[in-house]
């Protein structure tokens, strides 16, 4: 939207006034109301200027939203039924653990943020890697046939473990393909799909980013939207863990909260715009009650209020 205002069909008189007032591009006029645009013009004239600029820049956006919300006049708004249908069409990522899937209503939801928190060594990374593999299950098996981004801040992404999990997933899918009672055409489709669902293919579709400090994590959150444009099949972002880099050598707690909220916000944006699932891993911290000395219990570190569902992993 950096289009110069001089390229719009406006009279030279208006253009001059606009440039004197400091409006040079269409972007500058985007959020300005006719009243704010006080160029010693009549309000109707100001309205006409803004309408001319907006009508030429915005039609692409509004037409896109109109496709989804068929019976709606207000662009950008949807009714609850449409949203329900849309969410159902997204599907979810199965975890291969029946109880966990039931708890989540069929798996980790796409388009939402899910947080896993638990004590160290409890299996959070295991879940993250498992999801990164499971998101790649082919369509023929009812999977998402997607790709995964794994943001590793702790250095706990151990590739051997990924290989083991991927091999087990391949074996499981082969077993499913052989044992399920389906007709021949579907079976041949499944065996065809299995040819592409091999360990090496799975590994090549997990994109790993290793972040060493919180700056890199924030920078990555700005860069990722571009990466997602190139890799449109990505259906899952795992951040393991969101808390680690913020928990040491950080004195300004207000800044920390703001940065974390900003990060969460950009992940939500990615989740909504690209229809992908975001999984955040969180560490635990001990809360000691001053009233009862010696009594303590574990709570999630850095309370993130933004996630849709939060799971405590416990022994």
């Amino acid at each position, binding site marked *: *939207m*950096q289009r110069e205002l001089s390229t719009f069909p406006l009279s030279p008189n208006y253009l001059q006034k606009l440039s004197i007032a400091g409006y040079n*591009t269409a*972007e*500058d006029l*985007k*959020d300005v109301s006719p009243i704010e645009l006080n160029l010693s013009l009549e309000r109707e004239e100001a309205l006409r200027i803004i309408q001319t600029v907006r009508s030429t820049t915005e039609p692409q956006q509004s037409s896109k939203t109109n496709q989804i919300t068929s019976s709606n006049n207000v662009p950008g708004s949807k009714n609850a039924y449409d949203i329900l249908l849309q969410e159902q069409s997204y599907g979810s990522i199965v975890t291969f653990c029946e109880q966990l899937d039931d708890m989540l209503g069929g798996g980790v939801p796409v388009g939402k943020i899910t947080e896993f928190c638990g*004590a*160290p*060594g409890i299996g959070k990374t295991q879940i993250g890697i498992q999801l990164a593999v499971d998101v790649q299950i082919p369509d023929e098996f009812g999977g998402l046939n997607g790709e995964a981004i*794994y943001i590793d801040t*702790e*250095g*706990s*992404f*151990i*590739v*051997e473990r*990924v*290989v083991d999990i991927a091999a087990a997933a391949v074996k499981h899918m082969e077993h499913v393909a052989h044992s399920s009672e389906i007709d021949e055409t579907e079976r041949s489709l499944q065996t065809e799909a299995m040819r592409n669902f091999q360990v*090496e293919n*799975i*590994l*090549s*579709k*997990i*994109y*790993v*980013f*290793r*972040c*060493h400090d919180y*700056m*890199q994590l*924030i*920078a*990555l*959150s*700005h*860069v990722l939207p*571009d*990466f997602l444009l190139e890799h449109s099949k990505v259906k899952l972002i795992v951040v393991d863990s969101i808390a*680690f880099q913020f*928990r*040491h*050598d950080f004195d300004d707690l207000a*800044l920390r909260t*703001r*940065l974390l909220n*900003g990060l969460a916000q950009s992940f939500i944006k990615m989740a909504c715009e690209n229809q992908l699932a975001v999984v955040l891993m969180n*560490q635990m911290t*001990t809360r*000691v009650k001053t009233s009862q000395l010696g009594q303590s219990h*574990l709570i999630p570190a850095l309370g993130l209020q933004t996630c849709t569902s939060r799971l405590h992993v416990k*022994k």
Partner: protein
Amino acid sequence: MNSVERLDVHPRIITALKKARLTSQASILCMSAADLQRTTKLSHFDVSILLKAVSYALPSPAMKTALSLHLGSSKGQRLSLGCQILDGCLHGGILKQGITEVAGESSSGKTQICLQLCLTVQLPEEKGGLGGAGHPVAIIPQVEGVMICVGWGAVYISTEDVFPSKRLHQLTQYFVKNQTNLLNSSINPSDNIFIEHAADVDDLRNIITHRLPVLLNRGTIKLVIIDSIAALFRVEYSFSETSKRAKVLRSFGAQLHKLSHQHRIPFVCVNQVSDVIQSETKRVKWKSQSCYSCPGLGMVQYVDYAIDVT
């Protein structure tokens, strides 16, 4: 690296940044888009361009696929403990990178494992060590002008009591007897083990932030052991200072992680266990705890792999 002038953005944005006195990239990234708009008086779109440019300018690690990581890692992925049963449990030993925690009750054999690791690390890779193909690997000029041969070695930071040199000597004799064909006879394995003693937390901080990096930069050290990380902290901080203790521990953990990644070597930290008394029922239960809430100290959050010795 930190100057904003070299950013790939329109000059007018850079001028606005200078006017707002935002000179470092970090300070820009720490602000929200709305804050930036207010302080620099740039439009929403300009700010989003600016944030992207700053993000790209930061030295960030490139994306790797899991496949390239897998192909990049060599076959001898782990460091053997020199015991077949333990290696079997651990898929061949401890990880080549990252922090491994060894926790257990006193006299359960934690130090024994560490000493054993100091020796096995000197073996060539196919035997479960981390050494290269050739021995010796480096010749370091000494102060007096005498050259000595040094193999792949280990650093042992001892905090609990004096370094058990007698036990190491016994282990070394046995080790040399079994591995004579592998090791150059001119090398005494115990020559490659550097020992450091830390008496308090400040000492330990000094070692891991200043002296250890210097030694690691020589490139011959393949393993660092801290025996034990918890001992110092347990003495120095009282119950009311637990949050301070946790803070210092966390920054230590982060520093160890950084070193481990920079030099691609494993760190082993020994941890003690503490008893957790549960008095929910009438009978008081004593439970030796590990892994569950915290073995000794909450160091675990920074550990990639924990071994519990019982």
